[in-house]
């Protein structure tokens, strides 16, 4: 079989498994929920001012939802950027693009493999957070029913499905962030600049959201899409924010991904 995107993808994952930053990101994704639950258990208090915050002692299902809310400010953008911002730039750091681009895979296949590996890592990070926060939450607060944002009580089983679906919806803006990280990684050719750049972009968009006079932009900001999953926790389910998140994130991530691809395809691999 001729090598192609799948070959590059498999090897990109293999490279990620051999790098510390991957474990740093996934470790943070696992550790933060544990620290949160330990703090809840030891302090007995609850974050009442955020959605589902008041239920954290009633049901473990509330824990991943609160983590998703907290994590959207900088934690998940940073965890995503850790790999997205590095995946091309690390080839520049090690000067290895010339090594892999003189084999038998086309540049577009290399780029596609890298993009897929980045998305896989981002999905893994959210999955790890979801799994760990659910496990830790259920251990600490039990597997009980949860009250939706509309005030109706949802059974534990149905709540679990909704939490899973919320994690999936949360991936939409995460993938957009990953695309922006990839763009910065490709353009800056420097991991630190790309990671910080992605995080700054994410924070800047949040800043625009709180500027007076710009409230109208709110629904179209990338940061707002991190709350789209809350539509699932309403009765009946409100699909509007989820649909909006899909196209708004596509507008952020799509051009970034295309631009990154074009830069990667056309760049001179000229060394330092």
């Amino acid at each position, binding site marked *: *079989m*001729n*090598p192609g995107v799948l*070959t*590059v993808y*498999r*090897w990109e994952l*293999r*490279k990620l498994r*051999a*790098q510390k930053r991957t474990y740093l990101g996934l470790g943070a994704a696992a550790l933060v929920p544990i620290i949160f639950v330990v703090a809840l258990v030891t302090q007995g208090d609850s974050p009442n001012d955020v959605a589902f915050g008041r239920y954290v002692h009633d049901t473990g299902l509330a824990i991943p939802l609160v983590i998703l809310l907290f994590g959207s400010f900088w934690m998940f953008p940073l965890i995503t950027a850790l790999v997205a911002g590095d995946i091309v730039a690390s080839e520049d750091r*090690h*000067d*290895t*693009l*010339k*090594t*892999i*681009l*003189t*084999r*038998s*895979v*086309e*540049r577009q296949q290399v780029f596609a493999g890298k993009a897929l590996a980045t998305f896989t890592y981002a999905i893994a990070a959210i999955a790890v957070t979801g799994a760990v926060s659910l496990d830790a939450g259920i251990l600490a607060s039990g597997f009980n029913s949860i009250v939706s944002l509309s005030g109706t009580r949802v059974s534990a089983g149905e709540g679990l499905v909704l939490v899973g679906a919320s994690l999936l919806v949360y991936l939409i803006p995460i993938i957009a962030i990953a695309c922006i990280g990839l763009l910065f990684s490709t353009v800056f050719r420097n991991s630190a600049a790309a990671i910080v750049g992605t995080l700054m972009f994410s924070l800047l968009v949040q800043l625009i959201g709180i500027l007076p006079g710009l409230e109208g932009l709110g629904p179209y900001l990338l940061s707002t899409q991190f709350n789209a999953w809350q539509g699932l926790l309403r009765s009946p389910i409100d699909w509007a924010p989820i649909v909006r998140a899909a196209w708004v994130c596509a507008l952020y991530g799509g051009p970034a991904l295309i631009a990154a691809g074009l830069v990667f395809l*056309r760049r*001179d*691999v*000229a*060394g330092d």
Partner: protein
Amino acid sequence: MAEPAPIEVRGLCKRYGELIAVDDVDLTVEAGDVFGYLGPNGAGKTTSLRMMLGLIAPSAGSVRLFGRDPQASVKALRGVAGFVEAPTFYPYLNGRVNLDLLAALDGDGAKGRIEEALEIVGLSHRAKDKVGTYSHGMRQRLGIAAALLRQPRLLLLDEPATGLDPGGMRDMRDLIRNLSAQGMTVLLSSHLLTEVEELCNRVAIVREGRVAYQGSLEDLRRQAGSGYLLRTTDDERGRAVAEAQPGIGDVRVAPEAGLSFSAESESAIGALSLALAESGALTLELSSRHATLEDLFFRLTEGEEAETAKRERALEGAA
């Protein structure tokens, strides 16, 4: 129909703003050649190689490898391998895993050749160590192993002996000689004349991005040729006498001092000696002189014209 040449480069240029790194290079490497691409550092050798491998786009001109365009598709690199500057690998993976990765990107049964390639370059015993712990020489050898995975018919090597100790340089040359003996065409970029002289049958000498000479080493040696060196009490007059003398040619100001010329026979030398004495330009030194390949290399890469013009101006000033 005859197979296209392993490398055909026509009118190749690479400009970075005002800087012209490669300037209108034409190059043909025939099957079986060990072709030396020789020039001082900064002459544009690596940039040319990067264009040949499709890593950077030419500003003008074309490259064909076995008739295929490496700018259009990586398929043009079928049967081609090599490296530019020092070969690079993932330092956090071991040598064998690095080759595994590259073999996967090669396909075509390359994975099955890993052990043999490691054996050839003498790295089997360190294959399980991370590349980050390898010396420069070991990375060079791993670079050759990575190239061999592709079973190349054409090998492009950029300064493969740079940074190696004398033993490593000898091993590298032996390896290239062996690969060539097996029928591989090799393009060897180097700034070391001795290396090229030892390994190559054909050579292109580049200077400031341009090819100053291209042809066989034999022809180059002939061009270097032999001649005579003459110093007189009055070189200006001596030159005029020599130029007028039958059987004497190529009279020019010698790089070191005096004049150099070629002679058809020894009797022409005798006649010149007499004519010089009669003209009043008394002979201080008249000796046979064998120009080395090195002389010619420096003349081609550093510019004989400039040197000669400088000396001629100095002579005119003295007169």
